[in-house]
């Protein structure tokens, strides 16, 4: 008897909640969001906290054009095909006005292709591949984070100043690693024709056999090393490298290693003096970033990772685009987004009309060890707009519409 009454009231509650939701729907504006929450929780958890903070701030300030902003979030399990299923559900069943998110490059591309086919606005958050805005770019897709090319250009600027002439590369053997090495080599050889590339190692992604790799690189005796590995591979590489003295008296330039997601797990093993791109949240002293940092720490009692910035800025940018477009029509959203300037914790950013890439930049600096933790020192913010090829070149890279 008791139980049936309980069930009854639970059922009623669900129905009432459903009614309330559908009643509210008219004053809502829905954004769809997809990311690899179950596969890559280390990156997507801070990211989710970032965008949740943004949603809270936006709604506290009155929402978007008077409507409450709602983000419907889906997991893609790290599979492009599942990301498309999720995108389809968001567009067809949840009636979202735009898609955002994605972390892995292949998933970003899959959703971007879906967006192009179904004519839906898509703001890619984290994928790094250059293809998403250039070789396989389309008019429905925008991208927030600085691309592979931009990060390579920022690193090359520093790397070219090094005296080292003999270089070796270590990169995971898939599209991201291959293109990172290719761009770095190309830009570097343009600036420093005197450089020799003495060795390249291509460990399989996620399965590096670090000892032999370190040994092989050491045998080539390079003066400097480019590293593109990250995550657990990076931890293994650094540990073996430290033990075997690979990094002693050698310059190392490394993609992404300064991001707290990758730097923090290294703890007391953090190698010193690597030139890296990253996010030194502890040493950024700008009013925009202070405001973000305070709000984030107050809400979560935790420090932000780069993913937090990306998640936060994705939804902030999406809201700005919606506010300017004053419409759900994807064509109007594109028109609003092209050339749109948005404030961010890293300062003002612009979504370029020519290739839909945002000019969000990255911090560059050197790794150091402090109290048993890795940090970035000598940091400087590099604006994304300074590290993109000329408009003529970009126009050649992007397919004609």
């Amino acid at each position: 008897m008791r139980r049936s009454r309980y069930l009854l009231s639970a059922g009623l509650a669900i129905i009432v909640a459903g009614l309330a939701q559908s009643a509210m729907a008219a004053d809502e504006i829905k954004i769809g969001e997809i990311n690899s929450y179950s596969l890559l929780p280390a990156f997507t958890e801070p990211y989710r906290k970032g965008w949740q903070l943004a949603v809270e701030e936006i709604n506290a300030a009155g929402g978007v054009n008077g409507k409450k902003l709602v983000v419907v979030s889906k997991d893609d399990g790290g599979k492009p095909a599942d990301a498309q299923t999720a995108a389809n559900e968001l567009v067809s069943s949840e009636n979202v006005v735009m898609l955002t998110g994605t972390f892995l490059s292949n998933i970003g591309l899959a959703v971007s292709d879906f967006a192009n086919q179904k004519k839906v606005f898509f703001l890619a958050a984290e994928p790094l591949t250059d293809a998403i805005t250039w070789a396989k770019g389309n008019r429905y897709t925008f991208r927030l984070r600085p691309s592979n090319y931009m990060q390579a250009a920022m690193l090359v600027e520093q790397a070219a100043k090094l005296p080292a002439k003999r270089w070796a590369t270590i990169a995971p053997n898939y599209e991201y690693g291959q293109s990172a090495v290719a761009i770095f080599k190309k830009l570097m050889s343009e600036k420093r024709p005197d450089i020799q590339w003495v060795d390249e190692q291509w460990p399989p992604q996620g399965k590096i056999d670090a000892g032999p790799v370190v040994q092989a690189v050491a045998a080539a005796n390079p003066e400097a090393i480019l590293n593109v590995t990250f995550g657990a591979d990076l931890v293994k590489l650094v540990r073996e490298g430290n033990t075997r003295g690979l990094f002693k008296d050698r310059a190392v330039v490394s993609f992404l290693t300064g991001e707290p997601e990758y730097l923090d797990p290294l703890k007391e093993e953090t190698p010193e003096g690597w030139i890296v791109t990253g996010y030194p949240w502890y040493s950024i002293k700008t009013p925009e970033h202070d405001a973000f940092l305070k709000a984030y720490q107050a809400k979560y009692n935790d420090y932000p990772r780069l993913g937090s910035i990306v998640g936060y800025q994705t939804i902030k940018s999406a809201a700005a685009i919606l506010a300017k477009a004053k419409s759900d029509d994807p064509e109007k959203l594109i028109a609003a987004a092209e050339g749109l300037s948005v404030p961010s914790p890293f300062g003002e950013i612009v979504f370029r009309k020519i290739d839909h890439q945002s000019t969000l930049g990255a911090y560059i600096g050197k790794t150091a060890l402090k109290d048993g933790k890795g940090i970035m020192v000598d940091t400087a913010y590099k604006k994304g707009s300074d590290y993109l090829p000329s408009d003529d070149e970009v126009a050649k890279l992007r397919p004609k519409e």
Partner: protein
Amino acid sequence: MAFYFVQFLTGLASAASLFLVASGLSIIFGVTRIVNFAHGAFYMLGAYIAFTLTEQFSGAIGFWGGIVFAALIVAALGVLVEMVLLRRIYHAPELFQLLATFGLTLMVEDLVVLIWGPSDLLGRRAPGFWGAVDFFGQNVPTYDLFLIVLGPLVLGILWLLFQRTRWGVLVRAATQDRDMVAALGVNQKWLFTSVFAVGVFLAALGGALQIPRDAVHHAMDLRIIVDVFVVIVIGGLGSIIGAFVAAVLVSELNAFGILVFPKISIILVFLVMAAVLIIRPWGLFGKQEAPARRTPGLTVNPWRPLMLNERLGAMAALVLAAALPLIGGNYALAVGSEIAIFVIFAASLHFMMSVGGLASFGHAAYFGLGAYGVAFLAKMAGLPMIVSLLLGPLLGLLGAGVFGFFSVQLSGVYFAMLTLAFAQIVWSVAFQWVAVTGGDNGILGVWPEQWAASPSHFYWLSIGAAALAVVALRITVFSPFGFALRATRDSPLRGEAIGIDGKRIQWTAFVIAGTVAGVAGALFAYLKGSIFPDSLGISLSVDALVMVLLGGVETVSGVVVGAIVYKMLSIWLVSQTDLSKLVLGGFIVLIVVVLPKGIAGILETIGNRRRPEAPALLASQIDTAE
């Protein structure tokens, strides 16, 4: 010279931990015949628990004690799993235990994130083994030296255990002939439990010993499990020495492979495994398995074609399914199309596995080849959709033709592993050959033409193809070819005696299954509009296996139910929760315990119980004859 020697030592160090994990798996398989998919999960748990313990207790005793204690805790968990879960399903159809351990693996992957958090963890270095020793200008980490000593030491202990104790004698006897051991009055229950505990202990120890070198994270299990399968297959199942030699071989290949072929190190081990299996079908130290006594096909009710009213029922179900566009939206139709495509894919594996008795662990290769075939034809040759759909699967056929020829020379787990090796090779080529396949970034823009573009049209196309495929496979099952195939499955010797060329029949079945999988892949490419290497990957192959087992491996068309239930559930769960793996894994484990014959299998059993003339007597008589 010093460099090559140090490279060799490094390889040996990697071999040690690989050997620990592999020997555990090998012992478990040898005695219980369980392909323990959860072995990687136990390895990972060992690392996580050791991390916690070594952080808690300082000093050398804290560290080493923590490592051993972690392995003991995980071994206790293993005992629990064996007693609560696996004991119930030893008599289930072959490979069904794989399903249970797969479910466990899924659960553990989510559980470690819940317990230990999502970030990668960095364990302490081993006290006393911090630095490196200088060897003619090359640095050799002292921890590597420790591992190099440990490997042979464990091998020696295991050897003594097996050769010099009564328990070891029983284990060896059970590995050779477990029915005989049972007949001699040995308590199999506790033998199996103890073997499982030892195997899990070794896996967890292998994991725990990784913490000074590796990062502890929630994907460790997948990284090791495939390598371990490779090792035990190269070495020969059930052979500890073989596992050791193969672990050294694989690790040295990695160590030296990167010097010679830096870009293909990922497939090198699979190439070697394929080569070993082709030359020595039972691995380096393995022995030919004794012919199985119980054959799966005979323990169930004999298969029969559908009766008239059942056919009408199936037609009605199809008509109902075809009416989905009347009520469902675009999303429902896309999900419906995806399910239909997976029905085709799973049915093709079922045909090979249940009818042919050939359990493939790499069936996704042919699915993916079909999809890539379509992508090449449509994107590069610019052919129209109909032509691409018809010709694309031919790439699956071609792949199945080549790989199938070698695979059917083997049987049982060796067959499964060779198919896995071929699938991994194909996957690696697609993943790394960026110039042709686009690598990880795949091939985009393979969308259907106008006539099939609307979700309802594509849905009808998919279920039409699924119905055709299932009917065609059923007809094949009850054709003379199907009978010959089943004869080869149930008794290769008798089949040969009446003039059936078993290998050729099996090869043909392999090619048929590969082609049908290619059809599913071709449709999948058009459904998603793009194709990525993960369509060739292990996880898709495992999905297909799960669908077949879930539906019931001993039924003719239970796989249709299995595919629909599994695919629907996984799409729904991924959409609803981030913990989809935990829930799905739990569901699979539950199904395994409650419905050990699969969903359709249990329905069939209930149906047959009502029919009094079920030939139970006949079945039991054949069962004991051989």
